[in-house]
């Protein structure tokens, strides 16, 4: 199951972050849902998502278990959305991440038309999601608000690190790794794009937004 509720960031830093996911209710409408999940992903691909995921198999960015040492200099782009779609083989949660409202609106229009019968949720700024859904002819059914973090807040790192790490809601991107990537970009050891790819590989649901992470890393480097 994806975990997107508590992505950290002030409203103005979330304008390029829209996750849409589809799921079926267990034991109610999950039978025969596999083909519908594939259709969701295929429709999403027409609208240029920045990431795609299947919560049981992984995202479009994945670790490779048989790299050869030349990867240090020439690492192949291992993204393979075709096989991601093909390999959906059980009721799951599938997701697509968009970095602009136009793509989201176009996608929602097509999804409404496809009438898959799956539950479709947008994880984003709630007002923006409501407004864009209305433009696509959809009135929202339910809403869940993130009230943020409470308790031992002294355990949280700086804003940039928290922004990057919470883009995997399951906590698979550690604060220390996000900090390391910020430092490497600042030192010119890696580009924001390659640092974002390293982090995205740890997010097993494919909900990490590489456009947003590049922006955060660039801001850190220019500060």
């Amino acid at each position: 199951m994806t975990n997107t509720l508590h992505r950290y960031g002030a409203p103005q830093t979330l304008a390029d972050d829209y996750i849409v996911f589809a799921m079926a209710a267990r034991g109610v409408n999950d039978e025969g849902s596999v083909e519908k999940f594939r259709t969701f992903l295929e429709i999403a691909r027409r609208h240029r998502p920045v990431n795609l995921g299947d919560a049981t198999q992984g995202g479009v960015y994945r670790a490779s278990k048989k790299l050869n040492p030349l990867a240090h200099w020439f690492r192949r782009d291992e993204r393979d959305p075709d096989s991601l779609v093909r390999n959906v083989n059980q009721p799951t949660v599938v997701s697509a991440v968009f970095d602009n409202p136009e793509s989201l609106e176009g996608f929602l229009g097509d999804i409404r038309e496809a009438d898959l019968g799956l539950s479709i949720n947008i994880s984003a700024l709630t007002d923006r999601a409501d407004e864009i859904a209305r433009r696509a002819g959809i009135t929202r059914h339910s809403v869940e608000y993130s009230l943020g973090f409470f308790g031992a807040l002294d355990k949280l790192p700086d804003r940039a690190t928290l922004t990057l790490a919470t883009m995997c809601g399951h906590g698979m991107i550690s604060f220390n790794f996000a900090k390391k990537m910020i430092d490497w970009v600042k030192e010119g050891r890696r580009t924001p794009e390659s640092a974002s790819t390293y982090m995205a590989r740890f997010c097993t649901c494919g909900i990490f937004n590489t456009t947003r992470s590049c922006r955060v890393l660039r801001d850190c480097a220019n500060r």
Partner: protein
Amino acid sequence: MKISTDRCVACGNCIPVCPVGAIDIDPSIRRAVVDQERCVECFTCYRGLSTEHLNPTLVRTIRTVLGWVRVRFDPEPDVCPTAAIEPQELSWPRIVRRAFSDPLVPHESTGIHGRGTEEVKTNDVTHRVAEGEAGFTIEFGRPTVSASFRDISALTEALAGAGVEFEANNPVTHLMTDKKTGRIREDVLDERVLSAIVEIKTTMDRVPEILETATEAAKKIDTIVSIGVSTRCDDEGRSALEDVLHDEGFAFWRGKTNLGLGRRPQVTRAT
């Protein structure tokens, strides 16, 4: 999780990758080791790092020679060059660590099928939270801080004291000895997990009281608590919860919007 002392070449790549800081280099053996107390069995190191399967002796030799001339190789930061990280067999109660920490593992070991409940995400099909009601997701340990069930139990007991009803089909509820007291079973209290989510549902008028109980209890435990509140919107898509949260002084702008496109399968009858 374990690290093979035969294969590890102490490159240090796995250290920052661990969400809970459980990996370190032991200078006496010059190998990475996992602190079993801190490790929550999330499998991030094992699954997230790419691997190269290089010969460890060769890599150690090259690193030693480069070290003599003060050259340090800058490896890919998401690679374990010798595939030295190895999962270990988990038994009860340690197995609950993985069930709660690894998102790709179902919850069968805690007595719940799948990954837990569906919160408001399938509310258009299940109608779990109705208009005039509020659903709460109270999550412990995230982002990447981890929590012990002792901490979780302290808060679930406080919530139980306020008379809430815990969602039955939820893995944390299944670990309670008594749902009326919210007490978690003794044998898992010292287990640490990357995250655990407690779910409750109340009427809308109880939202302020429940939030106060949860946020006050959160101050007394040694982890982060993330709170989400949900409701069913009216036919126009308006949410009554918004006013309640504003009145209580909460700042909120992000969340999940269920579009209401899900439906139950049509039942076809023979007659």
